[in-house]
């Protein structure tokens, strides 16, 4: 059983910019442990002769030619942005958040 500790959940929460209650920390520690256990079971099935993979199909070298294609109209982007100013995305101040 690869238990995920409360400290690990708190660390993950900080990286993900999530504020968790004490109860949620316990809850997620339990759930994440179960997920890690489930994934670990794959290792039991995969023998030494099955190499780890990051992609389901054995394809390499899929490239595109270096050709410029039109992007998206700015007005359309602006319409989807939560906040927009001076032709740019407006985001909250960055320091002082952590």
């Amino acid at each position, binding site marked *: 059983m690869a238990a995920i500790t409360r400290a690990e959940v708190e660390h993950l929460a900080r990286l993900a910019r999530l504020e968790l209650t004490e109860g949620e920390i316990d809850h997620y520690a339990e759930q994440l442990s179960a997920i890690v256990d489930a994934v670990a079971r794959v290792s039991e099935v995969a023998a030494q002769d099955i190499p780890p993979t990051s992609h389901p199909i054995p394809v390499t070298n899929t490239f595109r030619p270096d050709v410029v294609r039109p992007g*998206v109209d700015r007005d359309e982007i602006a319409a989807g942005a939560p906040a927009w100013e001076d032709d740019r995305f*407006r985001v909250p101040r960055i320091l002082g958040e952590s």
Partner: protein
Amino acid sequence: MSGSTAITRMPFDQALQSFEPVLGLETHVELGTASKMFCGCATEFGGAPNTQVCPTCLGLPGSLPVVNAVAVESTIRMGLALHCDIASWCRFARKNYFYPDMPKDYQISQYDEPLCFDGYLDVVVATDDGPREFRVEIERVHMEEDTGKLTHAGGDTGRIHGADYSLVDYNRAGIPLIEIVTKPIVGAGSLAPLVARAYVTELRDLMRALGVSDVRMDQGSLRCDVNVSLAPAGEPWGTRSETKNVNSLRSVERAVRFEIERQAAVLTDGERVVQETRHFHEDTGETTPGRSKEHAEDYRYFPEPDLVPVAPSEDWIEQLRSTLPEVPSARRARLRDEWGISDLEMQTLVNAEALELVEATIAAGVDQGAARKWWTGEFTRVANEQGVALEDLRVTPAHIARVEALITDGSLTDKLARSVFEGVLAGEGDVDQVIAERGLVVVGDDSTLMSAIEQALADQPDVAEKIRGGKVQAAGAIVGAVMKATKGQADAAKVRTLLLAHLGVEE
């Protein structure tokens, strides 16, 4: 603002007596591809904000990246030029972090499987004992994408501190970058700042020669992170600082020097160097602490599931190898021989960052001696005064060719030529416009000069007598008077010849 608090420093020479500097350089260069790394958006610099974006580089749901073939080729060619091994199989990785410069909340990079690794670059620095070569070993060259550009607004300084909010332009997000990382550079001693600068200069020249990037440092297309630590005598390593985003060759040298002086003072005081990110300030030449590493960065890298591995074949690599151009060091040796100049003279051109400009000036038809003289003399002085790069001055090889032609046909003197360039550098126009505007014409016709000579002789009869008596060196006083009378617009040598002929005196 920057530099408001005094930072204790130990004089450079003294610092080097007790400590051995160890450097590490991480250089990011934007490749010169037409389209971005993973989508077809244009990479052109200076576009209106958010006009070179699409669902992929905006990180919109459902979009998928596809690798730019030319970016891979450029990275392999750079790796080959740096004598690296090329991976036969490697992957991209996600570098996860929350910051609005990447809308995906991760940057696609490479982690433990760089495309190129284990290379070197030889650089030459000038020392009191002549040129000395250093081998800088390369750890890796990998591919990644650039981030968007943030403008901090609301505060009064435009800097991140005091900003109320930020505005983001994603035109730059997704432009292909290569990151070149050195192994620790040890043994440079007091030459460490020069080695760092020479390395970045050589990298820049190499990339330009390869045509993989135009490397416009003023546009931020080459950015350097400078790691410096000091090893106290008898210890292998010290704690390093990482100075981020050093954006000019001169700044690289200054940042290394400053960190050596600062860390030496810290260590000598019995304190510890803090491992941290620092920022370099162009105005003061100092570094100040940035984000603390207290929360050690945790990027949770994992293989990018949206991209397939890159597995360059031997044939492809060899084909790319065959496209490698003459490397800068070989080119310097060739030009040195073509122009018939010495190693020292070539080193002077390289140090002045004038080699390309001199080559272009010679190509424009100017004699090599004159081309070198203008760039390493007058123009270097002006560039240093203004704190700008030589290539950013307003003067061009074509200007020099025009001025030299006018000197040759007698329309300008060397002195007037300086005045012409003064005008060109000040933005008064091209050579002919400045000449017309400033009225810079050699007073050349003999009758005008003769009447000035006669007037000067009449004003100084005693001098005239001396010259007639054979004291030729006294002629200087008359020539000076004529130059003054013609407001410096006469050819002094010609005045002297006319004067002596007039008095019937032989040289």
